[in-house]
């Protein structure tokens, strides 16, 4: 018994936390959870009935007089009722799928799956607001996600809020998320997409609508970069702007994540490391030790004051107070 208890601990640990779809932090997750419980309880009832009937049949004396009823029992229990149940479940599942993939939402967020990070673009009031690896959503509003991929098939999933949906090269898929609890919920790629697939994650921060509007306005603003910032000088000298964009500067690289407000994000490396100076320095100098196969080349020659200046500069790319 004690061993059994010990075995269940890690299983139960999976039932809590920011990645748990039973946490039910979104309207769409509620729908899927409802279907799950009906399936689970229904399957348990049917399984018990079948096993019960088998045990009953084993213990009972054969009565040839009941052969006729037994045949009809098999026809109804084994064919007619399962067909009706499967048909009902099919329709129910299809209706849920239809409802979580609408054409319109209160706001639109485009997410492009890259190997192995997320390019996120909000349809802001004054045009596109580009960010990466962190998604913020307003409470009780339906966000319509337009999902694409440039390379391989990814799958966009925020288990606690709803989903998931494949991101298919050459196509656009849609998914609605309507969070109904504030908090920080984990998101991940749910389709194996190559070496660092397991490290392709993101934070989903659900905020009050006013706070979200303020955040979006701050995210839309260009970066505040002093012309003589020594860190920005390193950024330029090392050619970082060839891949990364910092709005408000001449760095317009479209390849890697937008860094305009990278310092305002909680994590780096696509949701896998805390945004600290140590992690940022290591990310720049030893990228592949932190994320194998990442496209970004490491800069092991950067060290000392230059590295420190670059890290300080990147972390300073925060929102204006």
């Amino acid at each position, binding site marked *: 018994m004690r061993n059994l208890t010990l075995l269940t601990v890690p299983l139960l640990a999976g039932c809590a936390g920011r990645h748990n779809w039973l946490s039910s932090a979104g309207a769409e997750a509620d729908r899927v959870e409802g279907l799950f419980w009906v399936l689970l309880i229904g399957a348990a009832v049917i399984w018990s009935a079948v096993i019960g009937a088998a045990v009953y049949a084993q213990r009972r004396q054969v009565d040839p007089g009941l*052969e*006729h009823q037994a*045949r*009809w029992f098999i*026809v109804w229990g084994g064919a007619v009722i399962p*067909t009706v149940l499967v*048909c009902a479940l*099919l*329709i129910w599942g*299809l*209706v849920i*799928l*239809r409802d979580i993939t609408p*054409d319109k939402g209160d706001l639109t967020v485009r997410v492009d799956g890259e190997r192995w990070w997320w390019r996120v673009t909000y349809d802001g009031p004054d045009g596109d607001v580009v960010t990466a690896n962190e998604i913020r959503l307003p409470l009780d509003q339906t966000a319509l996600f337009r999902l694409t991929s440039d390379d391989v098939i990814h799958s966009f999933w925020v288990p606690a809020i709803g989903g998931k949906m494949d991101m298919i090269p050459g196509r656009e898929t849609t998914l609605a998320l309507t969070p109904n609890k504030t908090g920080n919920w984990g998101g991940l790629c749910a389709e194996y997409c190559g070496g660092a697939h397991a490290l392709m994650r993101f934070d989903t921060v659900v905020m009050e609508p006013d706070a979200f509007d303020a955040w979006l306005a701050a995210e839309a603003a260009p970066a505040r970069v002093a012309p003589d910032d020594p860190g920005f000088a390193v950024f330029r000298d090392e050619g970082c702007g060839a891949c990364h964009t910092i709005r408000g500067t001449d760095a317009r690289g479209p390849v890697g994540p937008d860094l305009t407000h990278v310092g305002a994000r909680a994590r780096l490396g696509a949701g896998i490391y805390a945004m600290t100076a140590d992690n940022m320095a290591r990310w720049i100098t030893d990228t592949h030790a932190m994320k194998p196969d990442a496209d970004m080349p490491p800069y092991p020659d950067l060290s000392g004051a230059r590295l420190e200046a670059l890290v300080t500069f990147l972390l300073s790319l925060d929102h204006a107070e």
Partner: protein
Amino acid sequence: MRYESDKQPSRFGPPGYAPRVIDQGSVWIMVAAPTLWALHFVASYVVAAVWCARIGPSLTEPRWIIAGMAVVCVALIVWLATQAVRRYGGVFVIFEEITESSERGRDKFIGHVSLLLCILSGVAIAFTVIPGFVFGSC
């Protein structure tokens, strides 16, 4: 009860005699209904794919094309089911085991299996049609 298969000969006749494909003694009736389902399934995919790629994004028209094809296929399956009953002596529920090693016994078995496959294929075609009526767009 008298079955069509009681008549002799059934499979072999005078020179030049060609048995019908769906008739007692032939096993093709067993694969006919699942084949209709498969054809409907493939045709539905082709119709939806071509429509969505070339005309789209509404599924209103192709859903009726798919449903129309389903009606035709189900009508053919119903005809097959009647043949399974009339020509093969097939019944839905068998209350007595078929142990007879005779042409009639084999026909009855084929008729029974065909009848079940007809029902299965009809349900499968319905399952193919339902998504088109739930989803309104590509």
